[in-house]
C-alpha cells in the first residue's frame, strides 16, 4: 500500500498526484501540518520534514525527483494514461508551418470568427529585450464571459483576459500557445467562474483547430 505525505497547495505534491492519477493508483493521503516543525510523522518515515514523501511498502521516497522514477518504474501505465496527461496539461497550443506574421494575421481572423476580442497586442520586444523577433502576445477576451467572471468574482484578475502567444520556432514555423482558461482559475475553485472560463476554452479550442 502507498502512503503519501503531502499538502494540496504544494506544487511538487501536485506533480506526484498527477502521476498517480495517470497510473490509476489508489493510496492513503496524509495531510501534514503547515509548519515543518510539526511533522513528526514525516520525520519518522523519512528522516526529514519536507513533503512530498511517498512510502511504498516500507520504503520512503523523498521529493518528486525520487518519487516519480519509482512510480513509473514500478507501475504500468494503463491505457487511459495519455488522456489523463492531456486533461492535466492545462494549456492549448498548435504548431503552424507558417511564418509568425502570417500566423498572426490568420489568428486575428479565426479569433474574431469565434467572438474572441483582441484587447491588446504586445510585441515581444516591448515585453522584454530577450524575447525573439516575431514573438507577439495577444490579450484576448470573450466579452460576455469576462462580464460573467467579473460578476462571479471581481478579484479574479486572471479570469478576464487570456494570454495567447505567437512563438517563432525558426525555419518559418511557429507555435500558437495559450494557457487553458479553466486552468487559469482552477485553483480558485469558484464554480461560476469556471463555467465562464469553459465558454472561453471551447471557443479557443475551435479557433486553434481552424488555424
Amino acid at each position, binding site marked *: 500500500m502507498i502512503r503519501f505525505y503531502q499538502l494540496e497547495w504544494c506544487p511538487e505534491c501536485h506533480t506526484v498526484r498527477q502521476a498517480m492519477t495517470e497510473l490509476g493508483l489508489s493510496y492513503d493521503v496524509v495531510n501534514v501540518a503547515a509548519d515543518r516543525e510539526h511533522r513528526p510523522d514525516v520525520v519518522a518515515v523519512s528522516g526529514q520534514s519536507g513533503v512530498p514523501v511517498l512510502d511504498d511498502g516500507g520504503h520512503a521516497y523523498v521529493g518528486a525527483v525520487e518519487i516519480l522514477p519509482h512510480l513509473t518504474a514500478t507501475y504500468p501505465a494503463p491505457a487511459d494514461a495519455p488522456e489523463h496527461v492531456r486533461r492535466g496539461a492545462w*494549456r492549448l497550443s498548435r504548431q503552424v508551418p507558417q511564418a509568425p506574421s502570417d500566423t498572426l494575421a490568420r489568428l486575428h481572423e479565426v479569433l474574431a470568427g469565434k467572438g474572441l476580442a483582441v484587447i491588446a497586442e504586445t510585441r515581444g520586444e516591448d515585453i522584454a529585450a530577450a524575447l525573439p523577433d516575431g514573438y507577439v502576445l495577444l490579450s484576448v477576451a470573450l466579452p460576455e464571459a*469576462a462580464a460573467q467572471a467579473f460578476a462571479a468574482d*471581481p478579484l479574479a484578475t486572471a479570469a478576464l483576459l487570456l494570454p495567447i502567444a505567437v512563438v517563432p520556432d525558426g525555419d518559418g514555423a511557429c507555435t500558437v500557445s495559450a494557457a487553458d482558461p479553466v486552468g487559469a482559475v482552477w485553483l480558485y475553485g469558484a464554480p461560476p467562474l469556471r463555467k465562464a472560463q469553459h465558454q472561453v476554452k471551447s471557443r479557443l479550442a475551435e479557433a486553434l483547430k481552424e488555424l
Partner: protein
Amino acid sequence: MITLYETEWCPDSHRIRQLLTELGLTYTAVNVAADKEQRPEVVSVSGQSGVPVLQDGDKVYVEPDDALEYLRTTYPRPGDADEHAARGAWRRSKSLSVPPRAAQARLAELLLAQELTIVAKLSGAQIDPHLPEEYVLLHVGAPAAIARSFELDPRAPVALLLPIAVIPAEGGGSVVAAADPVGQVWLYGDPALRRVQAAVKQRLLAVFKEL
C-alpha cells in the same frame, strides 16, 4: 475512514482535497478512469459515475458543495487551517481607503521600486462595457524573470506577465488584486519555471506590504 474518488485534474476534486488539507485529515484517494463508463467502483458506491465522490463511513456525497459542508461541520479546524487556506488561495488582494485613481498611482510607484515593469494598462471598458468604468488591469513583468521563463518554457505565455487589477469598491475606496505568480504556472509543473515565479512573487509581496 474517508475515501475520495477523484482525479488530479478535476477542479471540484481539488476543492475537496484543499479542505482535507486544511482540516489535516488522512484519507484514501482512489484515482478513477478517465472514461466515465469505466468506473464501476464509483457506480457501486454512489449509483452514478461522476467524481468527486466523498465517502465517510456510511455517508456518501456526490455534490461537491454537500461534501465540503459535511467536512466543515463534522471535523474541527486545527490551528494551522487558516495558514493552509492562505497558501492555497493563489491570489492576493488588499482593500484601500483611497479611490482607484490614487490607488493606481501608488501601485505604479511601488511596482517601479521593485523593478516590476507595467507592460500594458487596460481599462475595464476596453474589455467589456459591463465592467466598472474605473476598473484598470495592469500587465506587469520583471524583465530578467521574463527572459528566464522564456528560455525555460517558451510556450508558457502566462509566465511572462502578471495581471494586477485596481477595482473600485463601495464607499469610494478600491481593491488591488493580483494572481499569484507561482499559482499561474503551478499546474504546468516545471519546477524551474516555478522558481523564477517565486522570485517575482517575493517582489509582489513587497508591493502588497507597502500598499
